[in-house]
């Protein structure tokens, strides 16, 4: 896809990077002038996807594993790709069901994909066992009064 502006981040799959990754994507998205709530939605959805890479795709491994995060802008839409090269998912539609988790059911809600789906406008998950998983999310950022005012002034 052709973007008017894009960035790519390849980073170690370590939990201490979670905050940096979601903040980086949120900072980039500020170019579209999102509301505070939209920034919260983007940060949360990105956090869900990268946490899954760290917790599930590369479970129990440490160090050399990488996550790739791509963010592109077309018009007022933010397109986010999150790619890992880990375990993959056997049954994607089962994994995406609300409350499904392969983790510890006492401590994991199994709501990650449901949250991504609800906070973003589009979610596509493709996965190959032992090859990895690709999460694609899109969010349309609403035009704010601020943008319109700036436009009128220009």
């Amino acid at each position, binding site marked *: 896809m052709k973007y008017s502006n894009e960035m790519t981040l390849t980073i170690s799959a370590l*939990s201490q990077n*979670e905050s940096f990754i979601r903040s980086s994507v949120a900072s980039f998205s500020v170019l579209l002038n999102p509301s505070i709530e939209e920034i919260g939605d983007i*940060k949360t959805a990105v*956090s869900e996807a990268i946490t899954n890479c760290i917790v599930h795709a590369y479970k129990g491994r440490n160090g050399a594993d990488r996550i790739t995060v791509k963010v592109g802008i077309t018009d007022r839409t933010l397109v986010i790709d999150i790619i890992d090269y880990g375990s993959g998912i056997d049954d994607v539609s089962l994994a995406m069901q*609300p409350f499904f988790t392969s983790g510890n059911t006492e*401590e994991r809600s199994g*709501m990650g994909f449901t949250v991504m789906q*609800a*906070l973003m406008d589009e979610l596509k998950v493709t996965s190959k066992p032992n090859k990895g998983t690709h999460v694609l999310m899109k969010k349309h950022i609403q035009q704010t009064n601020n943008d319109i005012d700036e436009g009128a002034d220009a």
Partner: protein
Amino acid sequence: MEVISKQESDKTIIYLMGELDNHNADYARTKIDDIMAQSLKRIVVFDLKLLSFMDSTGIGVLIGRYKKAKGKQQLFVKNPSRTVDKIFLMSGLYDIMPKV
């Protein structure tokens, strides 16, 4: 992140502050469990006023505390951000931990 508590006459208030994500979840669990084990109050309120971020890992942490309390304590949440409010609603968290 940081977890601090305040005792009021009838309840314990637990302030979750900063970012509650997968990286901080173990710390949050341990801190909250310590506070809840020491508190004799039947009502525990999680105040999220100073929480700048939480995702589904945080929902898991809260549900885990609810399961651990086994009904001996009643749990509530207060002051979620708009995004957190949405994820609490969709996960049914308010059914077990009402918003006050």
